[in-house]
């Protein structure tokens, strides 16, 4: 039974344990409350939303450019890698401040509608038609991209399309149109995914696909695909930086967008782009275009 004094000593610690769940709960509630009060408005005035294509982000180019830009600028870049179609849609709604995209025809529509104040070429490379090594459609000897697509559609080989309204997808659709073919049927499949996933699907299925050069270079180790056609003027892949017209939208950080666009065109950034990929792939991924006009390039 023990004497009551013993009990009182023992009682002391048992009271501390009681209702521990709520003690912890209340402490958490206070902490979260304080954090919520102090942390409101975490987005900074200096944030610049860069809507861009997956290829620039996945290749690692932005990982080089953004820290360099931020080291000399007051602005912070928030790259949102969404694909060109989505990036242009974001621009239309004023949800981005600056764009780095590669679908010239679609870009020009926004320039004409006034959403984009200024469009400048940054760099280019070439799209590639890649496919199985045995090349049943003889794409490698086609005289042009449109001929290659015609040849593919006439054989029994699969073609994997991005199907995601990205810049690459837009280019592919433009090529089909130029070839006068409406792609359909079971031999034309849409992956609905990014370039990397699409390349892997094409590799697994021994199919043809259209890819940007950078992503193909990065992934080719793990792919059973051969580059068959590139360097064709119709396969030009032109990346442009687009500045939004700040007067059209309330919240667009047009100053930050302008600053980043000017940086991309500066000798400092162009030097970084020029050498990007050399150490890893033995060749640069992009060719500089700053100051070039589109007509010069296409000629």
């Amino acid at each position, binding site marked *: 039974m023990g004497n009551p004094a013993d009990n009182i000593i023992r009682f002391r610690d048992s009271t501390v344990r009681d209702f521990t769940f709520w003690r912890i709960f209340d402490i958490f509630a206070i902490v979260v409350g304080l954090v919520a009060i102090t942390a409101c408005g*975490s987005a900074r005035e200096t944030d610049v939303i860069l809507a861009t294509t997956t290829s620039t982000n996945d290749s690692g180019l932005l990982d080089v450019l953004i820290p360099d830009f931020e080291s000399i600028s007051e602005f912070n870049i928030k790259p949102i890698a969404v694909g060109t179609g989505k990036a242009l849609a974001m621009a239309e709604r004023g949800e981005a401040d600056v764009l780095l995209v590669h679908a010239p025809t679609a870009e020009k529509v926004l320039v004409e509608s006034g959403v984009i104040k200024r469009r400048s070429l940054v760099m280019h490379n070439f799209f590639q038609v890649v496919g199985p090594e045995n090349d049943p459609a003889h794409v490698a000897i086609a005289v042009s991209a449109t001929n290659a697509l015609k040849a593919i559609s006439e054989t029994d080989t699969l073609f994997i399309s991005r199907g995601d309204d990205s810049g690459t997808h837009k280019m592919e659709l433009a090529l089909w149109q130029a070839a006068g073919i409406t792609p359909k049927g079971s031999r034309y499949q849409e992956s609905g995914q990014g370039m990397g*996933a699409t390349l892997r699907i094409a590799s697994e299925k021994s199919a043809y696909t259209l890819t940007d050069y950078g992503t193909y270079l990065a992934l080719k180790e793990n792919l059973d695909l051969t580059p068959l056609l590139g360097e064709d003027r119709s396969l030009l892949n032109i990346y442009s930086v687009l500045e939004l017209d700040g007067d059209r939208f309330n919240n667009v950080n047009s100053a930050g967008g302008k600053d980043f666009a000017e940086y991309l065109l500066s000798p400092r950034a162009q030097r970084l782009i020029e050498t990007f990929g050399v150490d890893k792939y033995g060749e640069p991924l992009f060719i500089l275009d700053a100051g070039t006009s589109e007509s010069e390039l296409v000629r």
Partner: protein
Amino acid sequence: MELIWNGIVQAFKLIFHLDSELMNILWVTIRVSGTATLVSLLLGVPLGALLGTWRFPGRSAALSIIHTGMGAPPVVVGLFVMIMLWRSGPLGGLNFLYTPWAMILAQTIIAFPIITGFSMAAVAQIDPQLRQQLLGLGASRIQALRAVVQEARLPLLTAIMAGFGGAISEVGAVMMVGGNIKGETRVLTTATVLESGKGEFGTAIALSVILLLLVFGVIVGLTVLQQRNRIT
């Protein structure tokens, strides 16, 4: 197989070298999912306790909403949150889009119904007469509710596990509203998607292993807590 093994080796290398990028991703992951779980807990436990003990008109409608929320596709949640947070959207003024707050918001919306539902089930297991007894000992309604929840604390840990698991394993919604920005809104799941998209399968596997270890660690911790408090 070799790829997986190399990934695991790489995972441990990254962990032991305290790779700064990884540490940042880990920190963002824990901060975002931890806060989302905590907020869901603070809202979900009292609501679940109320729904579990209080019979009121419209209760079954409320239950249906919670149960739908428990099974709501995260991508739908992400889309909804994104539209709300757009600059042109109703909550655009918060400037939350592409910040960790947007991710916390999305994960909270995902975890909150899970925690509410589990809390409700946990509290419903408690004999309703206990509440009568507590009121008969002079408890106010709130005190009685808290004491009933205190009794349900062990099953409630399951609610925390489920909620945290739902939040941290989410990828579609946080990708949409967070933007997967390096150093800011990149979490383990979105980083894994990015790395596998880039073809960096080794890194992707390493990140998955780390994510698994993190979830495993949290679940083990909560389970130990649960077992230690259980009486036979």
